């Protein structure tokens, strides 16, 4: 259900209904118990409990269900991965010690960390890792457990070659296999006792045994997950600030779907961390001493794919006009705050392989108008929209159901496009049908499709845009396909990065893609919660976090 009100609007509405006297009297009681008067040199203290509020919480927690931005943040608190992306978005080993590969990239040997145990007492070794990887890479249709989509389909098999070394065999070369594995949020390593269960029992968190610094104490479907500290934990990531058990004793993660209620709970001290704060509330929270974390990491900006198999999108002049008619700075100024940035290309500027392509899509309404005239869209309908042969130049879009800011962005873009005579119509679709109705295979195709996805490594561009993969532009482009095939075949980071830049250049020069603004994972936290951070995925990190009394 989506009925969003700004908290301040709510107050005026509340005054209307409940009598302004009462609310005026109450207003004084509002405050932030956790002002950010931080002592930087204070020593971390162990203990304490925090509440983390999520916009959406899963009803089931089999690993295949934890791919959403909402779920992977929670999953990452108690489940750990072989490799991860650090805050500089470099891939580093965690439960692994490192890896080697053969010359043609069809065999990867992964070393496994010693001395790690799962929360049910089982030991982490090559055998358990092989078991995990085979489920992740192949799935198990007899138990309706799907394979992880981001793992390349060339995955053949993992076998333990010694107690602490696993060999992964691929049917065809895939140099970035490890990067692709590190970038898959549903490829954490779980205890054999967990992954041998049927899907129904794996979905029940009380059966989830992993290696993280917290363990699941209890959970309630669609509502709550309670984590308690694991006292024998001693294998943090190399980027952690301390060793041994985590500081926080208990973390209660709850679903509070209303944006303003999450913020209200934070402000009234009922919660200490909140995921997805509306940008409009950020400045106020900051003024009140709360911490705002906007984690821009490796991955796509918030932007739009143009599906070139849809109506009226084949003409590159029209596509360029759409790109040129967007005033990105106005979007930031109107809807966001100084913590947000306009896009400089298809990926966030923090991405190591990002390239600045601003020149190709800089706001230029005069040029947009000229291009549309040249493309023959010279008529006007009664509302002032351009027409050609009696047809209005109109595009439809379904705002994303996975994030909370799309509709505002698109409403403003519709106003900006109207200035050059292009009509943007926003339509609604429910949570699950979103993927179906916006699928590239649907007829007739939707002309625009949003993106706001993480990408640890350029191979994700291949996943999104190659015509044999997700094919998000909707029509095979031989030149683009060839470039993307070169990306997955390239053997060194330098080579991959340089090809990734060419790919970005290609999609921008051909105006397949409309970059709008950079897209962060955003959190707000109480001022007295110290040591909170995010990694390169970005996932929230609470291992070093502690409560200052």
């Amino acid at each position: 259900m989506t009925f969003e009100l700004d908290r301040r609007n709510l107050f005026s509405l509340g005054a209307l209904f409940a009598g302004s006297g009462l609310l005026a009297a109450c207003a004084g009681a509002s405050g932030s118990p956790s002002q950010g008067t931080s002592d930087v040199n204070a020593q971390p203290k162990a203990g304490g409990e925090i509440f983390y509020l999520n916009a959406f919480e899963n009803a089931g927690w089999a690993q295949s269900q934890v791919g959403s931005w909402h779920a992977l943040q929670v999953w990452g608190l108690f489940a750990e991965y072989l490799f991860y992306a650090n805050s500089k978005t470099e891939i580093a080993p965690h439960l692994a010690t490192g890896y080697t590969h053969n010359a043609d990239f069809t065999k990867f040997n992964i070393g496994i960390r010693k001395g790690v145990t799962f929360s049910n007492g089982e030991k982490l070794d090559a055998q358990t890792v092989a078991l995990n990887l085979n489920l992740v890479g192949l799935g198990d249709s007899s138990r309706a457990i799907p394979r992880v989509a981001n793992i390349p389909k060339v995955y053949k098999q993992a076998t333990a070659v010694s107690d602490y070394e696993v060999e992964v065999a691929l049917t065809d070369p895939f140099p970035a296999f490890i990067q692709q594995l590190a970038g898959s949020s549903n490829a954490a390593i779980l205890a054999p006792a967990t992954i041998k269960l049927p899907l129904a029992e794996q979905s029940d968190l009380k059966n989830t045994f992993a290696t993280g610094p917290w363990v699941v104490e209890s959970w309630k479907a669609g509502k709550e997950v309670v984590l308690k500290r694991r006292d024998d934990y001693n294998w943090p990531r190399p980027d952690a600030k301390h060793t041994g058990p985590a500081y926080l004793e208990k973390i209660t993660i709850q679903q509070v779907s209303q944006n303003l209620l999450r913020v209200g709970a934070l402000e009234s001290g009922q919660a200490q961390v909140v995921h997805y704060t509306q940008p409009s509330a950020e400045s106020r929270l900051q003024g009140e001493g709360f911490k705002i974390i906007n984690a821009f990491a490796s991955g796509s900006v918030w932007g739009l794919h143009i599906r070139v198999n849809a109506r009226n999108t084949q003409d590159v002049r029209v596509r360029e006009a759409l790109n040129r008619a967007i005033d990105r700075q106005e979007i930031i100024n109107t809807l966001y705050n100084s913590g947000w940035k306009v896009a400089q290309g298809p990926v966030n500027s923090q991405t190591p392989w990002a390239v600045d392509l601003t020149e190709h899509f800089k706001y230029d309404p005069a040029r947009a108008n000229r291009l549309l005239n040249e493309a023959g869209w010279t008529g006007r309908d009664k509302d002032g929209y351009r027409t050609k042969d009696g047809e209005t130049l109109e595009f439809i879009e379904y705002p994303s159901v996975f994030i909370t800011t799309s509709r505002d962005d698109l409403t403003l873009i519709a106003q900006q496009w109207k200035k050059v005579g292009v009509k943007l119509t926003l339509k609604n679709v429910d949570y699950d049908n979103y993927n179906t109705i916006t699928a590239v295979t649907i007829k007739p195709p939707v002309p625009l499709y949003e993106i706001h996805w993480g990408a640890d490594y350029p191979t994700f561009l291949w996943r999104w845009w190659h015509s044999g993969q997700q094919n998000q532009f909707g029509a095979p482009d031989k030149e683009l396909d060839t470039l993307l095939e070169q990306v997955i075949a390239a053997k060194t980071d330098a080579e991959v990065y340089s090809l990734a830049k060419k790919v970005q250049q290609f999609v921008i020069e051909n105006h397949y893609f409309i970059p709008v603004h950079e897209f962060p994972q955003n959190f707000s936290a109480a001022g007295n919660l110290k040591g909170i951070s995010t990694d390169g995925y970005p996932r929230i990190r609470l291992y070093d976090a502690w409560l200052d009394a």
Partner: protein
Amino acid sequence: MATVAIPRRPRSARLAGSYNARYVIARIGQAVLAVVLVYVLIFIIVTVLPGNPVSARLRSPELNYTEKQINDLLAYYRLDRPVWAQLGYALERLILHGDWGLSLDAGRPVTSVIRGGIPSTLELAGASFVIAALLAFVISIGAFYLPAKLGGGVLRTFPSLFLSMPNFLIGLVIIDVFSFNLGWFKITTYDGLSALIYPAVTLAIPVSAPIAQIFISALDAARTEQYSTVAISKGIGRFTLLVRHLLPNAALPTLTITAIIVGDLLGGSMITEAVFGRPGLGTVIETAATDQDVPVLQAAVTLTAVLFLVINLIVDLIYPLLDPRLRRATAR
């Protein structure tokens, strides 16, 4: 209908047995039939309508499944078989094993998903019902007896005012005032009395409106009846008039609307639970509907239908106890 001879019995026994057994059986039979029809209808709607949710979900390019994997998964959920075979299998599973299948969204058994939501929703609906009934009673009696100058007129506008206030807005205002500002309860607590009372009031306010509306007009109507005029002219006290003449006569229409209110309670609980973050049946239904989780939706809607029918059945069976005219009719 055949007449059943009613032997002389003590008053209480006479009341209980005062309607025909056939009337009771027929009512129960109708209810059971309705439940079966609801189940089959939902099954057919979701199976026959284009856009099978499971295969649509599996075919999402995001998942990157091969055709074989999709077929394997469809076979796992038995979606590769004809509709009648699916229905037969579903009914067999349900009747023989009490098994509703697996939730597509949660991946857990449907019974466990639904069972998790029932107690909380019953608690909320029950508490709201009591509060709504009390609220409606107080407003109606106040509106009926208080002179307009002393607020009787204002009270008469309350039902329409309550009815026009959206449930979620009442909830948000209550949370903002009592939780965030006064700190009387925490929205992160969803067990115990304080977690129950605020959502229950939220739900009760709009639900009380139709009860109060009907009750007020029924009281008004009863007062203009001849028996009231006669009673008043005989010098009967206001209280006795209310208790002996007006209330029993206003009870029937009020009871009817009360049965219908159950639907409002269930619908309203969905929104109230969402606003207050109370995990319950409403949340389960809402999630299942938005995620096209057919097995859960099917079980939840059937359960709701059962609940609705049971309440209506109870009301049907209470009528004759309240109204001697109906008692005679059903005994015939």
